[in-house]
């Protein structure tokens, strides 16, 4: 079998696929790779010789399967919408000093103002005016959220859609901690 000698350049291979997907299945080796043609860029694994009968290896190659970018984008977008429409996007909301937490479905809101007004009504407080330079000025509260990386971020910096897709929970900070954020 040839795979003892193969150059496993998988790590540098250009792939079209979700990050983190590991292609563990053997890739069906095209017949032309059976001869020892060296290629200048990384290519498919040569170790697939043994697995002639494998029915569903998924080679993630650039441009294959041949689907137009437009179509890909539309279907991916729908998938995102569908997933979150069906499941709702309920996140916990805590307010410093409040006895218990609340939960809201952030998919219900179209933009930041909508969300902030809802939060204001829910917890009976008022949030300052958002500015990119100073965060929320004019109030002792600031809305923050925990993102997918586990970091606490100020609400309002990123585009709305990005926020909705990365927000795991909300926390309305109060008092001296808020000043800390405002001074960034």
């Amino acid at each position, binding site marked *: 079998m040839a795979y003892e000698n193969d150059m496993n350049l998988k790590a540098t291979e250009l792939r079209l696929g979700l990050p983190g997907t590991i292609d563990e299945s053997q890739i069906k080796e095209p017949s*032309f790779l059976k001869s020892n043609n060296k290629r200048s860029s990384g290519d498919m694994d040569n170790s697939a010789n043994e697995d002639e009968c494998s029915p569903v290896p998924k*080679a993630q190659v650039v441009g294959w399967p041949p*689907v137009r970018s437009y179509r890909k984008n539309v279907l991916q977008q729908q998938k995102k919408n569908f997933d979150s429409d069906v499941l709702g996007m309920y996140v916990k909301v805590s307010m410093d000093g409040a006895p218990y937490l609340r939960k809201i479905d952030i998919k219900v809101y179209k933009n930041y103002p909508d969300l902030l007004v809802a939060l204001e009504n829910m917890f009976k407080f008022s949030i300052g005016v958002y500015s990119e330079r100073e965060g929320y000025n004019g109030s002792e509260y600031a809305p923050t959220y925990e993102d997918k990386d586990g970091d606490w971020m100020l609400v309002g910096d990123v585009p709305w859609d990005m926020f909705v897709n990365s927000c795991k929970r909300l926390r309305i900070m109060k008092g001296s901690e808020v000043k800390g954020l405002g001074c960034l």
Partner: protein
Amino acid sequence: MHSFQSMLNYFPEEVLEHVFDFLTSHRDRNAVSLVCKSWYAVERFSREKVFVGNCYAISPERLIARFPRFRSLTLKGKPHFADFNLVPNDWGGYVQPWIESIVRGGVNLEELRLKRMLVSDESLELLATFFPNFKSLVLVSCEGFTTDGLAAIASNCRFLRELDLQENEVEDRRGQWLSCFPDSCTSLVSLNFTCLKGEVNLASLERLVARCRNLRSLRVNNAVPLDALQRILAQAPQLVDLGTGSFVHDPDTESYNKLETSMQKCTSITSLSGFLDVSARCLPAVYPICGQLTSLNLSYAPGIYSDELVKLICYCNRLERLLVLDTIGDKGLGVVASSCKELQELRVFLSDVYGIGNTAVTEEGLVAISAGCPKLNSILYFCQQMTNEALIMVAKNCPNFIRFRLCTLNPTVPDAITMQPLDEGFGAIVKSCKDLKRLSISGLLTDQVFLYIGRYAKQLEMLSIAFAGDSDKGMLCVLNGCKKLKKLEIRDCPFGNVALLADMGKYETMRSLWMSSCEVTFGACKTLARKMPRLNVEIINENDQIEASFDDKQKVEKMYLYRTLVGPRKDAPGFVWTL
């Protein structure tokens, strides 16, 4: 005898022109202009529609010089494989220089159709400003413009009949472009803005539809909700072609009931598409018109599963064209086969676009369709697996294929039962389908399939090959045998210099050749470019390697060559090198 002869020689030009008027296809007109000098002269002054398959094959100045009275121009830019991310975005295909030349040339442009080109807002503004009779703009798979450019078109083109945007990447500036159609605009016949992502002013849209009594085709985008669609349909029951917007609503409401009523009154709709956002519960609203449909596109509705698809399709007895996702499954295709006896074109797309999962369609669905739909002549089929036996049966059932495109998820999958290459199956297709013009093959394939293609596919004009073949022999068979070949695109095949250089003159009879990840070397490309001055041989190298370091023996990653009358293009970006 002598006077009869001279009578034949003297044919008033007006008569010739009148006769040529009946020739609409550019190929016929091209043929006619080759007969003799006087026919060439009459034809060139009377040609109104010009088709340029490769915008770099000719210059706008030369085009205007030959056809000074043309009014309609079709232009194509990037190579087909650009659709699949194999060509960088800024490779080229700019329409701006064309429009500038056409303005300078005093052409009375009325119609512009572009495919895979880069279009800027400035280009659209030029169109809107300098062509008072501009009537029709069709943009397919283009990019580079925003809704501001569309606003310019809407505001200024007083006689606009057609604005058709198909699958373009358009930046949405949320500037209410649709509201820019003035109240005096009543000429629209066709409006398609499905690919736009932003909202349009619904009241403006409804008013526009109401005053354009000749509107035949309307395709809206996702931002147009179902109740707005209902109001539009109520105003435009004469529509022939409808693309829905968001088709989601609570079916137990008055809005929905009104929609059903309005839909029923649309007795002229024969083409239905859209459904980018659709709830299966709303589909029954469409049932009343199913029996009149000849074209149905559900290929952007992944949430509709086989059962619901089938419930809809079984009413579509007149269907000639069907586009669906593989969610339909083999069983669903079986229902299509028994319900749609008039079917001519079928496209089954992937619902899982990265091809990671499995598809629900296999060779069985294809065989069922071929058995049930004798008029089938065009197919695009993404599937999990294929067998030679199935392809042979399909070839026998449907000898009328003009377009046959098969794509297996795994590009080198063998026959699912025998584990053999799929050579025999495709061989049967080309042997049986004598009028085959376009072919895409996939699966495990050896040189044998190319032997068959070269021997039998005599009418073939476009061939797409990926991960196939064993040696140069394969490509040579195709180049030698397919006399009518216009476009050949090859990726990841073991074809090299011998095949490339065997018949260099052949490429002047073709529009273009694309080869990527093959065995062709830099030296061979240089040789070809040197010997054939009327070809542009472009090397696309995205790694920014310095040209000097290219060794003749080095393999070329991407090569695109095309015939041209105007030499190397001046707008090539840094990573494209014309040899």
